[in-house]
C-alpha cells in the first residue's frame, strides 16, 4: 500500500525514533511512502496562536504540494501536524473566504483531493488478522494507550467515534498481543507546546497521566504523538520533580511496539534515543 508522507519537523529531530521506527516497519507491512517534496513546517501550536490566515497558509502550502504530487492519501504521523493539516483542509474546502484570500495572496490552490490520515488510520488498515497471525513475536504487555488531544479533538476534524474513550489504538495493539487497560487519562492533555515555556505545568499534567498509568498496572504507555512522547519521556525528571515521585514506565511510539512484534531490534526502532530506559520492554520482548 502506497501513501504520501508528511513527516513534520519533530520527526526529523527530537522524535526521530518515531520516523525511524515507521520506516523500519514499513517494508514488513507492505507500506510504501512518498514524502511530500520540499515540505515546510505546519506552524504547529504557534502560528494559530498568532494569526489564523497564516496558520492555514502554512499547511495549505504542504497540501498544495501533496496535491501536485497526486498523493491521494497523505499520512501525517505527528498528531499536531495532522491536526493543522486537517483543519487547513476543512478551512480550504468549506470556507470560501479563506480559500479565496489564500489564492489571492499566495496563489495557493488546493482542491481537496488529498485525504489526510493519522498513523492509526494507516496501521489499522495494514495490521490485519492475517498479519497478526504471522508475527514472529507477540508484544504481550499490559499497556495503556495515550491519545492526548489532537488525535481525537476537535471531533469535527478527527471524526473519532468515541471521543472520550477512543478505541482505535487499543484495537491495533491487541492484534500484536498487547493487553490494553482501561484508564482515565487517555485523552487528557500533556501540556503540549508548553514544554519549554511552562515546564512546571507540563510536569503537573504529565504527572497525572503517569500516575494513572502506573496505578492501573501498565508496563508501557503507547503514544502516537511526538509532543506527548517528549513530554512524558524527555520531561520525566521535571515530572518527578513536580510530583515528588519516581516513574520508570517507558513511553513507546506505536510504531516501535509494532516493530517489536515484527522482530526488529531495539536499535532499528530507535529505542536508545529515549530518556526513560526501555530495558524492561527490550529485555522481556526479545
Amino acid at each position, binding site marked *: 500500500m502506497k501513501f504520501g508522507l508528511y513527516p513534520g519537523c519533530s520527526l526529523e529531530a527530537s522524535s526521530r525514533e518515531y520516523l525511524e521506527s515507521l520506516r523500519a516497519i514499513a517494508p514488513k507491512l507492505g507500506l510504501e511512502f512518498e514524502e511530500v517534496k520540499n515540505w515546510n513546517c505546519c506552524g504547529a*501550536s504557534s502560528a494559530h496562536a498568532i*494569526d489564523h490566515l497564516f*496558520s492555514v497558509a502554512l499547511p495549505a502550502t504542504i497540501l498544495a504540494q501533496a496535491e501536485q504530487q497526486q498523493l491521494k492519501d497523505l499520512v501525517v504521523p505527528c498528531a499536531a501536524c495532522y491536526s493543522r493539516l486537517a483543519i487547513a483542509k476543512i478551512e480550504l474546502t468549506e470556507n470560501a473566504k479563506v480559500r479565496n484570500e489564500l489564492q489571492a495572496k499566495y496563489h495557493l490552490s488546493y482542491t481537496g483531493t488529498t485525504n489526510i490520515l493519522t498513523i492509526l488510520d494507516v496501521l489499522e488498515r495494514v495490521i490485519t488478522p492475517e498479519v497478526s497471525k504471522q508475527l514472529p513475536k507477540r508484544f504481550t504487555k499490559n499497556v495503556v494507550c495515550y491519545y492526548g488531544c489532537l488525535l481525537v479533538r476537535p471531533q469535527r476534524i478527527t471524526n473519532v467515534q468515541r471521543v472520550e474513550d477512543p478505541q482505535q489504538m487499543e484495537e491495533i495493539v491487541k492484534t500484536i498481543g498487547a493487553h490494553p487497560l482501561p484508564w482515565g487519562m487517555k485523552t487528557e492533555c500533556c501540556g*503540549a507546546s508548553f514544554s519549554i*515555556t511552562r515546564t512546571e505545568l507540563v510536569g503537573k499534567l504529565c504527572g497525572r497521566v503517569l500516575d494513572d498509568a502506573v496505578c492501573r498496572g501498565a508496563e508501557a504507555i503507547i503514544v502516537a504523538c511526538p509532543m506527548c512522547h517528549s513530554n512524558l519521556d524527555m520531561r520525566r525528571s521535571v515530572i518527578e520533580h513536580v510530583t515528588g515521585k519516581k516513574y520508570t514506565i517507558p513511553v513507546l511510539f506505536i510504531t516501535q511496539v509494532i516493530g517489536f512484534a515484527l522482530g526488529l531490534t531495539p536499535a532499528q526502532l530507535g529505542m536508545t534515543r529515549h*530518556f526513560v530506559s526501555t530495558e524492561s520492554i527490550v529485555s522481556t520482548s526479545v
Partner: protein
Amino acid sequence: MLQDQKYRSTLSGTLYSKLGIHVERCYQCGKCSAGCPAASAMDLKPSIILRMLQVENERYDREVLQSYTIWLCLSCHTCSTRCPMEIDIPRVMDVLRSESLRQNLIHPRAKDIVAFHVSFLNTIKRFGRLWEVGMIVEYKIRTRHFFQDVLLAPVLFLKGKLTVVPHKCVSIKQLFTWKKQESSL
C-alpha cells in the same frame, strides 16, 4: 442585534460578525473551566472570559486582552468538545491572542510564551522548517532564560535529537505577510 455600531466594535461583536461565534450562547455552566487542564494556572477561568465578553464594555474587553489566560490556553479542545452550547472556545482564544498582540496588551507573565511563538515562527521563516537549536537560542536571547534546560542539551545531542546544522532551506518567506497591526481573523 448587530445593527448597533457600538456592538460591532466590541470583541464579541467582532467574534460574531467575523467568525459567527456567538458568545451570548454561553450560559455560564462552567463546564469549560471544570475540564480545562490549564485552568488552575489561569488568572481568569475560561467561562469568566466568556462572561466578560458578554458584558461588552471596554473595561472588560481590555481585561480579557490583558489576561494571562489567553496565553495559557493549550488549544487542547477539551472545553469545546464538551461545551453544551458548542462554542469554539479555542478559536475565541486564538482571536483574543491576535487582538492582544495587535493592541500590545500582552500580560507581563506571558511575554516569554509570546517570545516562544515568535522565536518558533522566526525559525521557520528563516529555514522553512523548525530548527530546534536555532529556535531555543533565539528564545533564550529574547527571554534571558539562559540556563533553562541547559543540562538537557548534551543528552539530546548524544541521543541524536539535536541537529547542529539546520535542514536544507525551503523558502516560505512569502507567507510571512502577517503583521501585528493587521491581524486577520
